[in-house]
């Protein structure tokens, strides 16, 4: 599909969103047309009123009804205008909301492979910036385009009805405005693109350097960083100056064309009026024409601006739809709900790879009985988390089968599978909300007593009580809590729901050793009678495991109990020895 097609596709899909507010769309268009035409008519009326004033006196008899007409029209136009602005704004924000919630809902259904692979900043910018660009550029743009076109047609009709020869003067000069605007917008477009590229570069640079300020300081890198910064900054200066100047050309240039039209109308209108016998082209008509000349050329300038905006808005829209078009996870609807999980897990001939060229897990077989403890060990980056991804069905196996409670996990709903695991991940996560909300995340209807009991079991209670508002303290993912404290919260979260199986991923790595010991005892209690998978560092956990999976660069190289593996004198034995080698 060509790029142009993509844009067209985006446009028609966007219109489908707008269709939901079809009533408002019609209202806004009617109001727009009404207000534009009526306000043009006011200009005609003012011209006629002016005609009543002549060197010979003022014809009040004719003027008064005209003025009354104007007085009636003014509030009507105002109301129509207000309705138009208001309904456009409402349409645009309803569409924005729908788009945002759709994207977000889609994110919740997308496979993790997509979210893991994509830059989060990029997804975020689609939810926030691109949607905004669509609302501002496209919807408000349409509004301007529509009123612009109505204005042009309306003024043309009114002008022709007054005097077609002078209208011709206006029509002949205006394309000049188009040509000028066209040249300028081309100049601008290239410069603006360059400018936003440099801006992006600069933002990236600052983002990184300020984010790594500690590093910059520790190595006295400041002067150097400033030099690099100034280099990009200067490029931005040069390019920005040009971009801004080119775009600033639009206004004076189009104003110039306007002035030409104005002068043209003035000269030819005056010549006409001078020649005209009474009843022909009047001074009032000329006054109208002068006003029209202003109103007629204005939308041309606006439209050329709007078109560039529309282009960039469409680009944003196509980015949004590209995200919405990403395949969601296969449907769960007809799957069974896993009930009364007995804690057995079986992996049969499991193969998995993130990318087809790099096979990771090959022919993995494992039979976990209810209540068994499985330790996963291996050097950093060996793919321990991959196994967790498969167990939780964050990723699907390439081939083979995983069974829980003797049911293939492909045949049960993801939610019921995941609900049977309690999981504490390496990367802790809290969201903005109270401590209580954060702990009861998996069991929102939990009583406060239950929450406190879980927190106590996770040894989080004491630090929570030291927070300003105890369990009602609002926390965010940014700051306030130390890594260790957040980990305790994650543990409390699991303590609260206590599912039949557990997955613990290096959960204790950033908790101090004394707390860790206490947590360990709580874990022992928790894991008793529960099937558990632990990404383990501690020798005691490893030793006591019913089965140890030894992983190395994505593969499971050995499998067995501690004694068996030590006897093998393979990779595991080496690993353990190196650990003791001090």
């Amino acid at each position, binding site marked *: 599909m060509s790029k142009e097609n993509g844009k067209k596709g985006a446009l028609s899909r966007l219109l489908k969103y707008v269709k939901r507010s079809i009533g408002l769309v019609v209202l806004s268009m009617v109001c727009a047309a009404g207000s534009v035409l009526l306000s043009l008519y006011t200009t005609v009326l003012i011209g006629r*009123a*002016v005609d009543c*004033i002549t060197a010979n006196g003022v014809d009040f008899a004719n*003027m008064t009804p005209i003025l009354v007409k*104007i*007085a009636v029209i003014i509030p009507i*136009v*105002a109301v129509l*205008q*207000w309705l138009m*602005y208001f309904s456009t*704004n409402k349409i645009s*924000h309803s569409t924005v*909301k729908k788009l*945002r*919630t759709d994207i977000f809902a889609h994110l*919740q259904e997308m496979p993790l492979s997509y*979210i893991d692979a994509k830059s989060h900043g990029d997804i975020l910018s689609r939810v926030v910036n691109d949607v905004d660009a669509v609302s501002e550029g496209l919807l408000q743009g349409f509004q301007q385009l529509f009123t612009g076109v109505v204005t042009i047609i309306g003024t043309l009709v009114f002008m022709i009805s007054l005097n077609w020869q002078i209208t011709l003067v206006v029509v002949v000069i205006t394309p000049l405005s188009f040509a000028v605007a066209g040249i300028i917008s081309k100049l601008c477009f290239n410069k603006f693109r360059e400018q936003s590229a440099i801006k992006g570069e600069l*933002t990236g640079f*600052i983002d*990184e350097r300020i*984010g790594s300020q500690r590093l910059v300081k520790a*190595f006295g890198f400041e*002067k150097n960083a400033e030099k690099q910064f100034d280099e990009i*900054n200067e490029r*931005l*200066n040069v390019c920005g100056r*040009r971009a*801004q*100047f080119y775009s*600033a*050309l639009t206004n004076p240039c189009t104003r110039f064309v306007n002035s*030409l039209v104005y*002068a043209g109308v*003035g*000269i030819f209108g*005056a010549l006409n009026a001078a020649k005209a016998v009474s009843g022909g082209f009047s*001074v009032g008509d*000329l006054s109208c024409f002068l006003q029209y000349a*202003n109103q007629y050329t204005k939308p041309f300038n606006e439209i050329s601006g709007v078109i560039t905006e529309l282009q960039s808005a469409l680009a944003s829209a196509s980015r949004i739809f590209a995200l919405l078009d990403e395949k969601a996870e296969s449907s769960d609807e007809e799957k069974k709900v896993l009930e009364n999980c007995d804690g057995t897990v079986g992996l049969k001939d499991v193969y998995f790879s993130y990318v087809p060229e790099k096979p990771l897990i090959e022919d993995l077989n494992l039979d976990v009985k209810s209540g068994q403890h499985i330790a996963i060990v*291996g*050097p950093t980056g060996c793919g321990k988390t991959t196994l967790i991804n498969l167990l939780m069905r964050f990723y699907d196996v390439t081939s083979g089968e995983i069974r829980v409670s003797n049911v293939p996990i492909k045949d049960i709903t993801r939610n019921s599978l*995941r609900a049977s695991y309690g999981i504490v*991940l390496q*990367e802790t*996560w809290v*969201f903005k909300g109270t401590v209580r909300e954060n702990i009861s995340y*998996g069991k929102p209807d939990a009583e406060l007593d239950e929450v406190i009991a879980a927190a106590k079991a996770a040894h989080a209670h004491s630090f929570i009580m030291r927070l300003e508002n105890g369990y009602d303290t609002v926390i965010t993912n940014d700051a306030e809590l130390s*890594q*260790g404290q957040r980990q305790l919260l994650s543990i409390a*979260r699991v303590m609260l729901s206590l599912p039949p199986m557990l997955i613990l991923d290096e959960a204790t*790595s*950033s908790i*101090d*050793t004394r*707390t860790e*010991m206490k947590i360990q005892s709580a874990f022992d209690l928790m894991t008793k009678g529960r099937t558990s998978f632990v990404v383990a560092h501690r*020798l005691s956990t490893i030793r006591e495991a019913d089965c140890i999976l030894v992983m190395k660069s994505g593969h499971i190289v050995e499998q067995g109990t501690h004694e068996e593996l030590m006897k093998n004198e393979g990779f595991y034995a080496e690993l353990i020895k190196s650990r*003791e080698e*001090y």
Partner: protein
Amino acid sequence: MLKLARYLKEFKLNVTIGPLCKLIEAIFELIVPLVMAQIIDKGITNRDETFIWQNGIILIILAVCGLLFALVCQYMASAASQGVGTRLRSDLYAHINTLSYKELDAIGSSALVTRVTNDVNQVQTAVAMLIRLVVRAPFLVIGATIMSFSISPGLSLIFFGTMAAIVLIMYPIMKATVKLFKKQQRSLDGISRITRENLSGIRVVRAFSRQDYEKSRFGAEAEEYRKFAVKAGRINALLNPAIFIVVNTAYLLIVWIGGGFAAQGADGLTQGKIIALVNYMTQISLALVVVANLVTIFTKAAASSARINEVFDMKTSITSPEHSPVQDKNAPAVSFNDVHFSYSTGDEALEGVSFELFRGETLGIIGGTGSGKSTLVNLMCRFYDTSEGTIKINGADIREYPLGELRRIISVVPQKAELLSGSLRENMTLGRSDISDEQIQKAFEIAQAKEFTDTLEDGLDTKVLQGGKNFSGGQKQRLTIARAIAQNSEILILDDSSSALDYATDAKLRKSIGELPLTRVIISQRANSILHADKIIVLDDGKVVGMGNHAQLLKSCAVYREICLTQYSEDEIRETEAAN
């Protein structure tokens, strides 16, 4: 905003010539209706075609001159605003670099990024508008009013009335919308926060099957945003219709009252003059719309400059002396004398820490999270100043060292392995030209990084992506260690920096670092990382609860023993004791 006005000084020429040109253009614009009135009143009435042509050509000349002046002004505005933006950004960034951790903690790094980018952009726009429009719009409004006064003092009252009415309408509307826009902005921040939370916590969300809850949370925030936006829109939509009413009523009054005047022959009003008045009214209404936009732009810019000034006003709490102190190579390499420290949050993070570390020795620091280990490092590098007590390096107080020199003596490997975008070489030298490729390769070897750096196709020219994304956690950690080693400093600090390494690599690394002719400070949560240190400090809750070597501490320090017990069995501890 005035504080930033000094940046305009450099662009005096632009700031004077620009508006001047604009003024001339505006004057030309104001003359146009007068010329047109002449055409109507003299040309048409007398049927004088030559007169019409002459004046028509004057109109065209006015247009051409107007264009030329406008172009000069636009150029001046572009150059000045971009120039101010560039200087401001550069100064701001340099200023941020002088701030110490204390100030950086207070303001937060993401806030700083927005100040350097968005806020500077707002100011930049305001500068352009200042030159382009600030003179023009009010001048047009005032000029048109004066012109109307000169045509008909009586009718000019309508002009004054119009302006007063518009100001009265615009002010409350804009005040209300600005308020709502702020709320809208806050709600948008909420939307991005929830999105960010969901992206980073997607596994937790799914593990607890809370997708629907997240959807409703997001939906509520999106609805909130919509409500504010529609509300703001409803009020903002009043502006144009209101101006329409005022301006058109003014037209009406001009014609009506003007007609009356003309009938009585008051003010010498003619048809052409009334048309001129109508034209001036049009100019005023257009200029007022511009003023409305200007007010928004300047409100935003004022808020931005306040935020920028907040950063400029922040003075670093850590000053750097110019001259190096006298060092005593026989004094301890590092000594702490009754050091106390607290972060701004209150409680003391370190209480009365004292120790001495001699040249070539290894110091191990162990303790739980929040026990003050990293604080100790931060103080040693003078990222913060102590609240009480002194720290000496080579016998001289660290506050007597120029910061650059101090940080050359000490190299630190921070907990978080950070790489910067650029080449691998740049990451290793960090701007120091005296570090050779050989030195870097040597450092790779010591840091156990050679196994993967050797496989890099472009070697030291390999590009490092932002945040070091193209290296794994363990690789990044080893590279940051290599970086510190390559600096060839006297003191090397490892702040829990091998957590991502497996035991085997960790052991090799420690061995090779142990052989370097350096003074070492190793901070760890793992007992085996510091087992062999000459001196171990056990920290608990900011206090030193034990100091000595492994064997001594096992006997004398309960906390230390407890830590070891969580990591080793009794038998293993006995073995380590024997081996030591």
